[in-house]
């Protein structure tokens, strides 16, 4: 097909947008492996700064990993059953619960963090442990897990599948574990990737909730931007990007919950039609 002038105009524009997003990333990466930023690449390439970052900030990386994995487990345990119940019930109570669960998306992280500090800041052991940060992350990421599972549940007629399983003798919990959960895989996977990615990068809440002994990766980054030389800050940013790159790739591959392979869709309203 012959491309029109409009096509190239659009392509040019899109390339510019891409450049806007990607060029700073390359600048940062370059700075992170350059011997001396002010002299530029001609001063030589080095992994010295990355090594230094590892020495200074390795514990922030471990803590971020620990928190994001724990946060994921918590979201799975409390979010997946909640999503199932919300998909199943259509009443007003269910909708109110759903609204409440997604509220942390609408309320700025700073406000949530402040509320947590005001309420639980006095419990010193809790305040100074990483669990305090975890709580904030769970609140913030849970809506994404719930939404993701809800989306996949609405893509297939899970109620009829359940009826099928029940007709074959399966109890409530058997139905949940052998029919519902396996068919929600794609939504759970997409939600999980989202949760881990968001948790690893969370700053708004974490900055308020952290203590000098509980610093996560983004907190460490803010720290280095304020107090370290540019090369170290850049190298640290590089480490962060390398860490989230696999997550982002996975998100692009599996980020959209797929429709569940399913027989011919039931005609609308077939459940109580006659």
């Amino acid at each position, binding site marked *: 097909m012959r491309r029109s002038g409009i096509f190239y105009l659009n392509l040019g524009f899109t390339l510019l947008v891409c450049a806007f997003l990607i060029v700073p990333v390359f600048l940062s990466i370059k700075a992170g492996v350059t011997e001396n930023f002010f002299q530029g690449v001609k001063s030589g390439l080095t992994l010295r700064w990355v090594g230094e970052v590892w020495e200074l900030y390795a514990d922030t990386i471990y803590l971020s990993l620990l928190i994001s994995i724990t946060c994921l487990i918590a979201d799975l345990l409390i979010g997946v059953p909640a999503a199932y119940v919300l998909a199943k019930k259509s009443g007003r109570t269910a909708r109110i619960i759903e609204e409440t669960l997604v509220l942390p998306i609408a309320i700025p992280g700073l406000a949530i963090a402040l509320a947590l500090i005001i309420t639980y800041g006095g419990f010193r052991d809790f305040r100074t442990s990483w669990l305090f940060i975890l709580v904030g992350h769970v609140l913030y990421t849970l809506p994404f897990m719930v939404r993701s599972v809800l989306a996949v549940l609405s893509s*297939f*007629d899970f109620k*009829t*599948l359940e*009826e*099928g*399983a*029940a*007709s*074959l*003798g*399966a*109890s409530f919990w*058997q139905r949940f574990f*052998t*029919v519902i959960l*396996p*068919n929600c*895989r794609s939504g759970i996977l997409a939600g999980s990737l989202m949760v881990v990615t968001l948790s690893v990068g969370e700053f708004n809440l974490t900055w308020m909730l952290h203590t000098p002994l509980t610093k996560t990766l983004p907190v460490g980054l803010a720290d280095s931007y304020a107090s370290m030389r540019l090369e170290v800050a850049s190298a640290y940013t590089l480490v962060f990007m390398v860490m989230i790159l696999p997550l982002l790739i996975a998100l692009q591959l599996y980020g959209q919950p797929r429709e*569940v*392979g*399913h*027989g*011919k*869709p*039931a*005609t609308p309203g*077939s459940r*109580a*039609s*006659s």
Partner: protein
Amino acid sequence: MNQSTQSIDIRLIECAKTFSDGTRALEPLTLQIEAGETVVLLGPSGCGKTTTLRIIAGLESPDPGGQVLFGQDDVTNQPIERRNVGMVFQSYALFPNMSVEQNIAYGLTVRKMANDEKARRVAEMLDMMQITELAGRRIDQLSGGQRQRVALARAIAVRPRVLLLDEPLTALDALLRERLRVEIDQLLRELGITAVYVTHDQNEAMALGDRIVVMDKGMVAQTGTPQDIYYKPSNAFVADFIGTINRLRGTANKGMLQTAGGKLPWSGPDAGDIEVLFRPEDATIVALDAAELRGHVVASYFLGDRTKVLLDGIGEQTVVVETADRRQFAKGAEIGLIIKPDALMTLE
């Protein structure tokens, strides 16, 4: 076939259903289904047939006062998973996360059947439904007809006490529907299982049912054998819903019925002004001088094996007749008919 479970009878006693939003889906219904019998619930959508089936299945409970009995067993308060029923859904409800084999084995797995016995039973089912080569397939790799076979195999693998089928052929195209209908019929005869079959398709109902329960607006309109329903409809709804029917108005007097289109022999009582009904296939097109009724062609449709002719001047509404004659029917032409003497029906 060693279907060891004995077939049982089902009784619904005064089962009504009102949904939580207040809609009345089913008026109090009492229905006896004999052991080994195939009963078809037939009616338009919204007539209560699916609700009735779901009450039998245990997916809905009847309003208080209603009772469901499986043989001597009162199952009214048992959930579906303890009723030991086999159910085939309109959308098949096959589990997309399992293979064909795993789907068929599911009910057995839930019942904790030993692996070797389970494998034997699954193989038997695959063989019976002639889908052995599909055993390892994923559900989304199956055609509609194949899915239907898997759904049937899955439902009967557990040797249910009753088999419940909810519009199982509706999602299929016409040709396949016809073929599977025959297969389901054979299967039900072979198993001798008590079966309840819901459909809105009268042909399916006629072909499969030992008895048909025609339903309308949450009530039973008529119960009877296919022949009863077809030849002796007990009310206008059944007469109209099943097949095509022609209506004539006339005066019955001294063994003759005088209608707008001519005189017919009449064996019924002298009832004055009455309405009689007859099926299109009971009318024969004959030469005008031999005809009992005469009308004019409004339209004719060539259907391949037969021609459908619409006539006016006989009844208040257009009369439909069918003929295998290879002749053309010009619009407006006068046509003569005779009607089989025993084919005239009246509604009470």
